[in-house]
């Protein structure tokens, strides 16, 4: 991993099109300003990891009981309204 020191207001460039600027430092928090092309997705890492974990769980194999349960569920808007 490349480690760089930067002061408030200074930037780094990643390739031709991405710039990351230190726009604020308060205690243990650093505020970053990022300029990047629209096609580049920028995310807080912990959010991405949470989605990754959830996707892995969601991809777990279903047993035949669950498959039957899922396939038997019907849309039933009319009945829902009737019940209320």
């Amino acid at each position, binding site marked *: 991993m490349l480690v760089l020191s930067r002061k408030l207001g200074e930037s780094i460039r990643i390739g031709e099109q991405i710039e990351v600027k230190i726009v604020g430092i308060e205690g243990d928090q650093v505020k970053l300003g990022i300029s990047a092309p*629209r*096609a*580049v*997705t920028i*995310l*807080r890492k912990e*959010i*991405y990891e*949470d*989605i*990754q*974990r*959830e*996707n*892995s*769980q*969601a*991809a*777990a*194999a*279903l047993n035949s*009981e*669950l*498959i039957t*349960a*899922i*396939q*038997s*569920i*019907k*849309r*039933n808007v009319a*009945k*829902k309204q*009737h*019940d209320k």
Partner: protein
Amino acid sequence: MQIKTRYFGEQDIDEAEVITFPNGLPGFDDDLRFVLQPFGDVFSILQSADHADVCFVVTNPFLFFKNYSVELPDTLVTQLGVSRREDVAVLVIVTVHTPFAESTANFNAPVVINTLKRVGCQYIPDRSQYSVREPLAIGALTGKA
């Protein structure tokens, strides 16, 4: 084309049915081609065309939250090449629990598909009022609540 599916065995799929996910899905970066197949009345299976064991139960979020909404940023609209609102399909990935009534779905990061160009991605918003593990109100859906 011939694909192996987890729940429907080997299948012959029309290439035009394939939905491309240029970045895969988080945690599944190598799966760039999926097909969507009905799984009962309410759910579908989003099946990887490349790996039989990569598939997800998905559903229409609007069936569960009438007022569900997701605001697609320009970046995403550009990435998916969306030109008309009616070409956009939104699905949520279900994490199945036993019993099924305890299942949750990721209303936070929906799968967004341009149905015209057949390109999709899982959109992760910076902020959302919905959880990654939102309980699925199946009882309300079936009238058995």
